[in-house]
């Protein structure tokens, strides 16, 4: 794509240079003449100027050379007086372009000139206007040198640098050239044709001047502005300028449009250089069209296109980027002052921060002073002066009294020339603050003296707006008037009530019951041991019976008092079971008054203890 555009630019350069020439296409011959060609070496996409001295009959003798094309572009005369003898010489000017690279010999009269043609793009470095244009960077000088003249209208854009950084601002100049005699109305302002660039501070009305190119006067419209890149990448400028041209068309050639295929006709650009050049020469439009004053006046809207230029946009490096860097590119300086220099507590003051320097001041932003224990600050307002200074004015309110220091403020930017980040700081400011009551209505007299153009005026006694939006709530109602509050508030009370009321409401738990049973049985067993040790058979059997009944009652799920020896025998099916025997002994002692032998108590205790352990494990 880029190569196609480049090729188009070359072809257009040749085509435009060849087509926009006044005069006939005839290459005369026959007359003897001296000649010179300049330069003698060109690139394929460039043209040389051939000057041939005309003979007495005003004719020249330029012969056909295979691979070269000659286009007569004009004529000049000079008179020489040597020792009273006056002589006059007339020069006929030709533009010479080649079909292919090589070394050409051009026979002119008795002379032979040599022209060396290099491949396209290998010749002298393209000028600022690019190789496509018939105009070099300095049309009034270089055009004559290169013999590229004769265009009716051209647009040229000048960027001082082909490598920019995002946010960097560079001057850009658009120059539109119009041949004298063409009535042109500008229907817009020129654009760079790259969405990644923004043009700022462009003049609405161009400056007008007249420049002479190859002896041909041109009216020049010049716009100057600042180009700023917004995104990184490789770009090609496609500058354009919409115009409306009015010209007089020759009556004998109603179809001849002098601009057709020249300015905005892509088909013309797609042809080969030589074919296009021959096509333009055949048209010979302007010589006839503007020479015929009786021709028809035509008006046409068209767009001038400038030669394509490659521009590279780089992002500022991330390495070494200061924390407070916010996109400023250039070279700046910063200073601050406080007005008034002394004040009273809670009385607003104005902190003025000025940034000067070279660069895109539009991108310069400063957060200003942050609120602290001693100072309450409001967001700064910014304005850009015509002198190239960006001024930030910030209302600051002292929150304490005494000698308060406004700390230094830093500002970081990227210096594209030094290719590094630079941080500048202001000097700390000391202010004498007198003590006053805390919250007093602010009167207009002690408002900060912020200049009317940028302040949040008319504040008329009101303190400025707050810029921190704060935490949003759906309602101003207090929490206890909202539905979710009381369930939350009730949780601890419910928990407390649950803990306190649980035993009463739900009774003793199974675990508690078993623990109580275990404790009861343990008490009976202890009593049993003591009775055995003391030889008290009655107490021993009472305790043993109680312990056994408790265990059996738990196991059979009946009341302990309902268990008798008969019941136990029936349930256990064994008359000789020690448990049954123990219960019978208890019943005998309790109800029959029998006396047990104390000597057997120890043995009986061991047996009952063992059976109680078995019952406990079973349950």
């Amino acid at each position, binding site marked *: 794509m880029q190569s196609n555009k480049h090729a188009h630019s070359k072809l257009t350069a040749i085509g435009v240079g060849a087509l926009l020439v006044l005069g006939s296409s005839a290459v005369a011959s026959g007359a003897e003449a001296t000649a010179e060609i300049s330069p003698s070496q060109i690139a394929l996409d460039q043209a040389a100027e051939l000057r041939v001295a005309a003979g007495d009959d005003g004719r020249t003798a330029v012969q056909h050379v295979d691979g070269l094309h000659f286009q007569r572009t004009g004529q000049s005369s000079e008179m020489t007086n040597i020792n009273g003898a006056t002589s006059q010489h007339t020069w006929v000017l030709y533009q010479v372009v080649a079909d292919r690279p090589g070394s050409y010999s051009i026979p002119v009269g008795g002379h032979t000139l040599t022209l060396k043609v290099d491949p396209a793009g290998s010749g002298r470095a393209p000028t600022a206007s690019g190789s496509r244009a018939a105009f070099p960077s300095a049309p009034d000088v270089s055009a004559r040198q290169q013999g590229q003249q004769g265009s009716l209208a051209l647009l040229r854009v000048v960027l001082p640098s082909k490598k920019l950084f995002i946010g960097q601002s560079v001057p850009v100049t658009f120059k539109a050239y119009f041949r004298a005699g063409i009535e042109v109305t500008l229907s817009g302002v020129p654009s760079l044709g790259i969405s990644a660039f923004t043009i700022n501070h462009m003049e609405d009305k161009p400056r007008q001047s007249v420049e002479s190119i190859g002896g041909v006067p041109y009216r020049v419209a010049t716009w100057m502005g600042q180009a700023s890149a917004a995104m990184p990448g490789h770009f090609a400028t496609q500058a354009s300028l919409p115009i409306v041209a009015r010209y007089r068309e020759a009556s004998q050639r109603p179809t001849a449009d002098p601009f057709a295929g020249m300015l905005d006709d892509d088909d013309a650009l797609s042809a080969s250089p030589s074919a296009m050049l021959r096509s333009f020469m055949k048209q010979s439009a302007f010589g006839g069209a503007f020479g015929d004053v009786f021709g028809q006046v035509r008006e046409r809207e068209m767009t001038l296109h400038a030669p394509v230029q490659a521009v590279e946009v780089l992002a500022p490096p991330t390495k070494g980027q200061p924390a407070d860097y916010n996109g400023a590119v250039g070279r700046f300086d910063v200073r601050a002052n406080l007005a008034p220099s002394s004040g009273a507590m809670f009385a607003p003051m104005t902190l003025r921060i000025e940034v000067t320097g070279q660069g895109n001041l539009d991108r310069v932003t400063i957060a200003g002073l942050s609120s602290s224990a001693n100072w309450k600050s409001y967001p700064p307002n910014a304005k850009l002066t015509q002198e190239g200074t960006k001024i930030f004015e910030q209302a600051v309110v002292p929150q304490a009294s005494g000698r308060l220091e406004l700390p230094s403020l830093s500002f970081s930017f990227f210096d594209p020339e030094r290719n590094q980040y630079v941080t500048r700081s202001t000097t700390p400011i000391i202010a004498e603050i007198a003590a006053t009551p805390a919250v007093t209505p602010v009167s207009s007299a002690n408002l900060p003296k912020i200049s009317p153009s940028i302040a949040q005026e008319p504040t008329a006694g009101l303190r400025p707006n707050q810029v921190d939006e704060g935490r*949003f709530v759906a309602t101003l*109602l207090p929490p206890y008037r909202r539905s979710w509050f009381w369930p939350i508030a009730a949780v601890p009370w419910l*928990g407390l009530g649950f803990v306190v009321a649980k035993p009463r409401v739900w009774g003793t738990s199974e675990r508690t019951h078993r623990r109580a049973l275990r404790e009861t049985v343990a008490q009976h067993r202890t009593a049993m041991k003591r009775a055995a040790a003391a030889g008290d058979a009655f107490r021993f059997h009472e305790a043993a019976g109680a312990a056994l009944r408790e265990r059996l009652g738990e196991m059979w799920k009946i009341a302990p008092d309902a268990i008798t020896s008969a019941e136990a025998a029936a349930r256990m099916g064994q008359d000789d079971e020690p448990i049954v025997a123990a219960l019978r002994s208890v019943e005998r002692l309790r109800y029959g008054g029998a006396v047990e032998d104390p000597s057997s108590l120890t043995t009986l205790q061991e047996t009952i203890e063992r059976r109680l352990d078995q019952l406990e494990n079973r349950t």
Partner: protein
Amino acid sequence: MTCARASKMLRWLDHGISLMAAILALGIAGPARAESHGTSFDEANRSYSEGHYADAVTDFETLARSRGWSAPLLYDLANAYAQEGKVGLSVLNYERAQVLAPRDPDIAANLAYVRAKAGLPAPVQPWYQRFARTFSLTTWTLFAISGFWLACVAFLAGRKWRVRRLFHAAAFATLVGVSTVAAAVVLDQDLDHAVIVESKTAPVRVSPFDTAASEVALSEGEEVSIIGRHGDFVRVRDGQGRRGWVQSAAVQVVVPRRS
């Protein structure tokens, strides 16, 4: 202890409680509102700074409808109304901003300025009301609920481990909770406060009918308490204790029951 240090401590305390409130609100009630569409807070402020106060009012109101209320939003809205000369709406929104941020000096200063400029008397507040206004109702409520939570925990811990001091702590926390409830009750009376917003003067009638006689008139921006309702009228009591009926369209309550 200097006044500044005390103020700083209060501010930190308030921030902590506000954080708790935010967490609680997010957990229970979800986000306040959906994100705004279109108008942003910065755009509204830009309109204000450029002197387009009507646009600023519209933007702030739009923002309030889409995202809810915040103290800075209400304060900025009140400023915009003040610049437009709408004293009633300005006072109303300063009052609302004070509900959320009762100690903000900007709100207090501008409210005092607007009242003074309009010739409105500043409401006289007894000491307990001034004390209650140290924190917002939300903060007081959270104090209370925190106190009761702590009391429960201390009571249970004391019961479990039989520690007498924990019972004392529970009693103290209960006292804190009860005190803050009292403060909230005092402040809650402000919820029925309203501001005359609709017209320069609102006639106070002896009965809730348009044909009833009017003895006095209230000024725009004047504060009243609503003590009754009937049809399109509300019964109000002004700062001097006078009572009467005014059109309900002429007043707006500081804390609306519905958002």
